[in-house]
C-alpha cells in the first residue's frame, strides 16, 4: 500500500476542511483541540465504566484501566504540545514556521500513535470482556478521534510547508494566511482600540481551569496587561478562593473539569447573594457552543473562545470589568440611598406611630380616626416652674430628659402610645392607634411604674421631683392634621377630662375618673376622692389609684 494511497484514504474518512474555505492556523488548532477534548472525555468515561469491580477482580479490566491511563497521559502530552505550538506570539514576534513544522513532524505524532495503538488494543481486549457495548463505543470514539488527529497533523504538515515567504507582522496589510494569531496589536485597524486599552481597567481576575498549562498561559497574558491574577485548579478551589478573597472582580471559568464542573461552579455563584453579580466569562472551545448558550442562560456574561485571540481577550475583559465597576458604583449609590431612606423612616417612626406612618407614606394627607374608647394619661412635674429658677436651664432640661426618657421606655414596654410632651407635662394614650383591649388596666399599671421611676431617679440623682398623674377613659379622635410639623394627636372631651384629672390632682398621686375606675377596680386598689368640681365640667366623682390588688 503506497503512502499516497494511505493519505487519501485517511482524508476521505475524515474530511478535515471543506475545500473552498481558506484555512487558518486557528482552524487547525480548533480542530486539533476538539479531537483532544473528545478523547479526554471518552477516556474519562471509559475509566468510570471500567472502574467498578463488578464480579470480583477482573484481570482484563485492570489491564484495560492501565491502558486508558496511558491514553490519558499521551493526550495530555499532546495538549501541552498544542499549547506550546499555538501560544499567541508575543508582541512583535511572528510564528516560527520552521520550528512549527519540526515540532509537528517529530512530536505531535507520537502521542497520537499511542492513542491509536492503545485504543486498538483496548478494542481487542473488549472481545474478552463480558459484552459491553458502551465500553466498546467509547473506545471506538477515541480511535476515530485519534485517526482524525492524524489526518489533521498530516494536513498541518502540508500547510506549514507551503513554500511562501512568511509575511512580517508590520507588512501585514490584512489578516490572511494565519489571521487570528498574527492579528496582534499592530494591526492598523486596531489602532483605535490601542488607545482604549491604554487605559485598561484594573482588577483582580480569577482563572478557573484544571489544566495548568491553560492557566499559566492566560495568567501570563493577563499579567502583562496589568491585571492581578489568581488561579484555581478546580471548582472547589475556586469557591474557596472566592470566599476568602473579596476583591475578585471577574472569573474566567473552564467548563470541563473533574469533580465539580463549570456549570456547578456557575450555579453556586449565581445562588450566592454576594457572588451573583460577579461577571463570569466562560472559557470554551468551538464545539461547546451549546454549553456556552446554557451558561449564558445560567447567568454567565460572555465566553472566550479558545485559542484566545489576545485582542478579543483583552477587550472583553476590559468591557466586563468596566461594566462591573459601573455596577459597583451604582450599587454603592443605591446602598447609600437605602441608608438615607432608612434614616428618614426611623425619624418618621420616632415622630409617628408605625401604622400612621405607613398610611401617610401611602398618600393619606389627613388622618382623623374615631375611637369609641381609649385611656388617656397626663403626668406633670410638680413645682417645675419654681425649680427652674434654682438650677441652670441646661441642667434642668437634662434632668427632664432623664425623666421623660424613663417614661418613654415604660410606654414602649407596655405598648402604649406617647403622644407628646408639653413643657414639663407628658401625655400618652392606650388603645390608640392600635387597639388594646385592656387599655385602662395597662395605663393604670404604667402610671404606678411612673411614680416608681421618679422615686428611683430621685434617690439616684439626689433630687426631689414629684409628679401628678391623671387618667380618664372615653372616646377620642386621633390623627394628623395640618400642613407641616406633623404630630399625631388626640382630640375630644376625653383629653380635656384626663388633663383636668392631672391638674386638679395631688403630688405623688394618681387621680382617675369614674369611667377609668370602673375599668380597673377589679384589679387595682382605689380610694374614692368623692365629688370634685372639675373646671368646665361640673361635679365629677374621682378616685385615687393606690396599687394593684395582690390576689386579684
Amino acid at each position, binding site marked *: *500500500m503506497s*503512502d499516497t494511497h*494511505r*493519505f487519501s484514504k485517511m482524508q476521505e474518512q475524515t474530511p478535515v476542511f471543506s475545500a473552498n474555505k481558506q484555512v487558518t492556523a486557528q482552524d487547525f488548532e480548533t480542530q486539533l483541540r476538539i479531537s483532544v477534548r473528545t478523547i479526554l472525555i471518552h477516556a474519562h468515561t471509559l475509566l468510570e465504566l471500567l472502574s467498578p469491580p463488578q464480579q470480583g477482580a477482573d484481570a482484563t479490566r485492570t489491564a484495560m484501566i492501565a491502558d486508558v491511563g*496511558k491514553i490519558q497521559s*499521551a493526550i495530555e502530552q499532546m495538549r501541552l504540545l498544542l499549547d506550546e505550538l499555538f501560544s499567541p506570539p508575543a508582541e512583535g514576534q511572528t510564528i516560527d514556521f520552521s520550528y512549527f513544522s519540526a515540532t509537528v*513532524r*517529530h512530536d505531535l*505524532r*507520537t502521542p*497520537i*500513535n*499511542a492513542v*491509536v*495503538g*492503545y485504543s*486498538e*488494543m483496548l478494542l*481487542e481486549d473488549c472481545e474478552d470482556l463480558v459484552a459491553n457495548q458502551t465500553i466498546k463505543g467509547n473506545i471506538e470514539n477515541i480511535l476515530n478521534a*485519534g485517526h482524525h488527529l*492524524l489526518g489533521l497533523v*498530516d494536513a498541518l*504538515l502540508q500547510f506549514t510547508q507551503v513554500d511562501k515567504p512568511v509575511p512580517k507582522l508590520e507588512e501585514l496589510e490584512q489578516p490572511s494566511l494565519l489571521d487570528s494569531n498574527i492579528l496582534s496589536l499592530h494591526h492598523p485597524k486596531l489602532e483605535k482600540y490601542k488607545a482604549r486599552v491604554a487605559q485598561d481597567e484594573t482588577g483582580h481576575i480569577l482563572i478557573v481551569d484544571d489544566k495548568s498549562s491553560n492557566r499559566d498561559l492566560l495568567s501570563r497574558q493577563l499579567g502583562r496587561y496589568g491585571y492581578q491574577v489568581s488561579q484555581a485548579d478546580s471548582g472547589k478551589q475556586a469557591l474557596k478562593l472566592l470566599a476568602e478573597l473579596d476583591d475578585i472582580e471577574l472569573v474566567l471559568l473552564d467548563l470541563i473539569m473533574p469533580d465539580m464542573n463549570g456549570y456547578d461552579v456557575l450555579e453556586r455563584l449565581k445562588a450566592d447573594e454576594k457572588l451573583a453579580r460577579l461577571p463570569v466569562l466562560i472559557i470554551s472551545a468551538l464545539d461547546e457552543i451549546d454549553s456556552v448558550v446554557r451558561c449564558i442562560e445560567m447567568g454567565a456574561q460572555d465566553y472566550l473562545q479558545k485559542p484566545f485571540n489576545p485582542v478579543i481577550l483583552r477587550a472583553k475583559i476590559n468591557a466586563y470589568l468596566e461594566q462591573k465597576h459601573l455596577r459597583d458604583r451604582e450599587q454603592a449609590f443605591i446602598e447609600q440611598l437605602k441608608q438615607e431612606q432608612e434614616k428618614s423612616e426611623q425619624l418618621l417612626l420616632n415622630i409617628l406611630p408605625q401604622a400612621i406612618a405607613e398610611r401617610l407614606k401611602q398618600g393619606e394627607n389627613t388622618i382623623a380616626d374615631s375611637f369609641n374608647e381609649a385611656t388617656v394619661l397626663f403626668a406633670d412635674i410638680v413645682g417645675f416652674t419654681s425649680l427652674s429658677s434654682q438650677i441652670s436651664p441646661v441642667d434642668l432640661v437634662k434632668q427632664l430628659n432623664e425623666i421623660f426618657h424613663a417614661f418613654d421606655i415604660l410606654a414602649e414596654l407596655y405598648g402604649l402610645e406617647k403622644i407628646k410632651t408639653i413643657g414639663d407635662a407628658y401625655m400618652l394614650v392606650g388603645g390608640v392607634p392600635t387597639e388594646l383591649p385592656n387599655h385602662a388596666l395597662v395605663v393604670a399599671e404604667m402610671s404606678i411604674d411612673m411614680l416608681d421611676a421618679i422615686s428611683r431617679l430621685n434617690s439616684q440623682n439626689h433630687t426631689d421631683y414629684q409628679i401628678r398623674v391623671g387618667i380618664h377613659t372615653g372616646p377620642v379622635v386621633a390623627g394628623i392634621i395640618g400642613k407641616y410639623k406633623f404630630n399625631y394627636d388626640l382630640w375630644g372631651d376625653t383629653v380635656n377630662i384626663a388633663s383636668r384629672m392631672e391638674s386638679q390632682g395631688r403630688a405623688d398621686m394618681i387621680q382617675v375618673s369614674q369611667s377609668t375606675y370602673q375599668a380597673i377596680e377589679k384589679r387595682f386598689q382605689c380610694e374614692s376622692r368623692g365629688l370634685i368640681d372639675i373646671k368646665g365640667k361640673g361635679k365629677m366623682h374621682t378616685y385615687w389609684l393606690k396599687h394593684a390588688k395582690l390576689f386579684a
Partner: protein
Amino acid sequence: MAKILLVEDNEMNRDMLSRRLKRKGYDIIMAVDGGQGVEMAHSEQPDLILMDMSLPVKDGWTATKELKADDATRSIPVIALTAHAMAGDREQALEAGCDDYDTKPIELPRLLGKIETLL
C-alpha cells in the same frame, strides 16, 4: 515461535507494540536505542527486527546499515518503522538496507502481513 527484536525508544510505543505482537504468538525482545539494537541482534539472533528510525544514541538508519554490513546479522530481515509519512523516508529506509518499511501508527494487520512475508 518466531523471535522478534523490537528497537523502539518510546516507552509507550514499545509497550503497546510488544504486547500486541505477543498476543499474536510472537516472542518479543526489546532494545531502546540503535546501539543496544545492534548488540541484541548479535547476541539474540532474532528472526526479524522491527526498527524505529528516529532513535537516540544511534539512529535506525545507521543501526540498519551496520547490521546489513555485518555477515552475522545481514540475513535478519529489518522492517523500518517511522513516524514520518514524508516522501523520501521510504527511499531512505530502503537505501539503508531495510527489507520493508511501515509507518506509524501501526496498522497491525498490515504489519503482520509484512512480518509473515519476511519470516
